[in-house]
């Protein structure tokens, strides 16, 4: 794949704290995410996965290094510009608390567009609603939905604005395996059908296995960057890394 990457990180370093207490959560990471690819970021707890994702998504600023999204260098943007970038070019799925409790499922899906004051593409909206499979619960509040349903709504919300990239931080971390599969296939479908670029942080091998590529972090560094075909291969990869 030789086209220019949607997201590119160069020599990222993120240090928390100062002096003796300083933690280098990300310690020199350069990684590209090409258009239309589904990438999983793996690694043990505390290895810096979330920190990396936050910097890639413009939620946190790196101590050193640079991030570009869709050709835009994030370092030069102020808060308002970063916010607009997140709204228009990035979709988010978090592990918990993805939805606003006071809005209905459908309103939650449309939230990024409402914030931008834009109307949804009706075809896409219909397609997403169908894919989420909520049926008549679309008008319900999140508290009336199951955890899996909530995460699917969150995925639809991330996709509605046709963002350049979707970042998902442990989107299945809280789900049973059936719900988890549904969420993963939604993401996979977006990549296959719309050519959506997806970056997903996970520590679950079976989740990582549906990605096209797995980047493994340990202690804030990239220790592996491969394209395993199955859950077994992912597990093997993790074993190698741990060794």
């Amino acid at each position, binding site marked *: 794949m030789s086209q220019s990457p949607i997201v590119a990180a160069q020599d990222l370093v993120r240090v928390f704290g100062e002096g003796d207490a300083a933690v280098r959560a990300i310690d020199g990471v350069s990684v590209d995410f090409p258009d239309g690819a589904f990438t999983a970021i793996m690694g043990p707890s505390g290895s810096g996965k979330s920190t990396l994702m936050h910097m890639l998504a413009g939620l946190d600023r790196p101590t050193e290094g640079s991030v570009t999204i869709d050709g835009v260098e994030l370092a030069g943007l102020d808060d308002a510009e970063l*916010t607009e970038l997140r*709204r228009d070019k990035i979709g*988010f799925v978090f592990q918990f*608390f993805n939805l606003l409790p*006071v*809005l209905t499922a459908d309103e939650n899906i449309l939230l*990024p567009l409402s914030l931008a004051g834009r109307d949804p593409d009706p075809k896409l909206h219909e397609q997403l609603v169908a894919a989420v499979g909520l049926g008549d619960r679309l008008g319900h509040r999140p508290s009336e939905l199951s955890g899996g349903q909530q995460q699917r709504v969150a995925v639809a919300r991330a996709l509605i604005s046709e963002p350049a990239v979707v970042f998902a931080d442990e989107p299945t971390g809280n789900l049973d395996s059936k719900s988890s599969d549904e969420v993963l296939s939604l993401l996979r479908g977006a990549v296959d059908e719309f050519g959506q670029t997806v970056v997903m942080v996970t520590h679950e091998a079976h989740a990582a296995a549906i990605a096209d590529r797995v980047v493994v972090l340990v202690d804030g560094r990239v220790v592996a960057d491969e394209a395993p075909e199955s859950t077994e291969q992912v597990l093997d990869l993790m074993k190698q890394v741990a060794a």
Partner: protein
Amino acid sequence: MSSIALRNLGARKLRTFLTALAIVLGVMMVAGTYVLTDTIEQSFDKIFTESNEGVDAVVTSKQVVETDDGQEPPIEASLLEAVRGVDGVAEAAGTISDPQVAIIDPDGDRVGGGGAPTFAFSTTPERFDPLEYPEGGPPQADDEVVIDKAAAETAGYELGDEVTLAGKQEASRYTLVGLATLGDIESFGGASIALLTLPEAQRITGKQGRFDSITVAGADGVSQDALANRIAAVLPDSSEVETGEANTQSQQDDVGEFIGILKTVLLVFAGVSLFVASFLIFNTFSITVAQRTREFAMLRTLGANRRQIITSLVIEALAIGLAASVLGLLAGIAFAPVIGLLFDVLEIGLPKEGTVVETRTIVTAIVLGTGLAVLAALVPALRATRVPPVVGLREGASLETSAGRRRRGLVGLALAVIGIVLMALGLFGVLSPGEAWLGVGAAVVFIGVALLSPRLVRPLASIVGMPLQRLSGVAGRLARENSIRNPGRTATTAAALMIGLALVSFVTVFAAGLKGSVDKAIDEGITAELRLSNTDGFSDIPARTATAIEGVEGVEAASPYRYTQALIEGDKGFLSLVDPATVNDVFDFDWREGSAETAAGLGPTDAVVDDNWARDNGLGVGDAFAVTTPSGREISYTVTGTIKDNTDFFGDYFASDANAAAYNEADNITSSFVRLADGADEEATREQIEGIVDTGFPTVQTQNRQEIKDSIGDELSQLLGVVYALLGLAVIVSLFGIVNTLALSIYERTRELGLLRAVGMSRRQVRRIIRYEAVITALIGAVLGLVLGVVFAILVSRPLADEGFTLVIPVATLLVLMVLAAIAGVLAAIAPARRASRLDVLDALAYE
């Protein structure tokens, strides 16, 4: 972990601060009122003590009717000889001290603007003279005057200048021969002094051959009591004697009574603020306790019992309450002069020297503030600890059951009804004192509506939130949803604002009705084209003003009019004295029985009575009623006619001024109504009248009907302004309530805000949500308040309806109030919105 702990602490600090602020504001007004009134009282005490130095006994007339103008009937000068003859009297002097004169400045205006009186004093022998003369000395001749130093400075007079004084005669000119001060007292609160020789003081006040009092010094070895007893023996029934000390005391008591009224009025407004503040305190404790439900549940699973948790909460409230009360007390001491400014606006000149902080003030402030805090904490504490620990541990556990909510609504409805009934009972005199019950009823209504209002929040939020949602889509929608999320919380916050706005709109509606009724009464009842009255708006003018203009070309009649007080059938009441010969030229009575001839033919003991008063007293034409005049004369009046007197312009009755002297009103009148001859040139006639008045009677103004209406309107708006200012504090307190609720809600919704920011909500949009939420809350409060205010006005004006009071609802003004409330909401949202928009997205997203 440590960052979370720190954030908790930060949030706790905020909560503590906001709770404390409510208490501080509430206590401030109470403490400020006490400090201010105590200070005024002490300043007066000092003035009276100082001016009575060297006086062992004082002889005055026996006051039969305490009139509101503070005038006491004079005593006969012949009494002085009798007093001097009493054994043990070392020296006795007749004195004049009359509050109805004015020092005219070089521009022809009265010094001090008429807010505080100017006293004409007569010179007294050295030993009685309380004055010091930094320049010159007491007047020796009848054309000499001494004025107080402050007045001289205000007017720009210097020794040797010609000073004009206006009293009950034509204004006279004097040479200024001295400046006076009263000991080290700097200010009499705007009051001034003009010192004249005794004969001149008697002349200008219309008291020739009479004194206001006789001051007596006893011989060595004669006690004040003994002296007073001996003097009493020689006095006629119409006069009395007091010891010097008792006289000082009774002057202090008189002023104390007046200040007591001021104090009560101010305390009522302070009470309103405190009442509003208690909503806020209650709300803050409710929210913070709810936020800590999990903490308590955790403590309970660790073995803490209910009592321990309640106790710890109460101790917390006690500590906050105590600290806040002390701050409130200090704030009140600082705030007292600000309240004092209100008197200046109303031109009530009162001396305010120093700062008096009585123990009572300290105790009241602290007990009130601490007590309220504890009470407000107790309910939520009981409620929170009633939740079983397992339930409490769940996130978002609700403290209220729906049955509880329903019960609350019913109790609210019941209270609102009971409150209205109490108001009505107070209003129609079933419960007394009426005003107190009216107030209690209103407070009960407020509590009732506040309890009821959670059920109104949802519909009201939909109505007022709809335009906002139209305006800005998702921000408006979120604001509306947020405001109905905790209906109880929004309701209590809005209810606090409701109280202030209900009272504001009540007085607005009521004042509009009053103004309309007065205007109508003037238009329909007064046929005179002009009125001469005192420039200060309330004092009398010399009776000679009316006669002085009689000869002016174009004047058909100048009818003297006196509005005064007497004991009528045993009760102090108001009445009018008119000139039967001209009264029909200037007034158009609304006769029930009788006619213009009845008024023209009024004999000295005939009276035309207000038909309401006649009905209340079972009187009809031909019946007699007894009146004791301020001079002590008993007059039996015969009813010769009845009128309908809207706005109670004439008082209980009107009678002929043939008996004016009996009412001590021979030389002064309230106003003179002028009827112009047919075809007279109003402009030219008025100019002539003003020419005469300006030189001879500088305290007299000429007004046409429109100007009379305008000046009444001005007075009313001034009073209204002061009432608004006093209610303003309550409104400000309630705005802090909005700030408070928003800040605490934002803290609760940190994560939601983080999510919104992550998915692309701009800071501006965040601010907008918070702002709209505040506006929605404020508008809910405004709608409830305005509705209640109008309801109160309708209720309170019921008994006045048959006196011609017509209620007009000033829709435009009410709409303005609504807009102001919305703007206030925007202002209240500034700080919380800022805070919310500055949230660090990652921090906010970080889960525990």
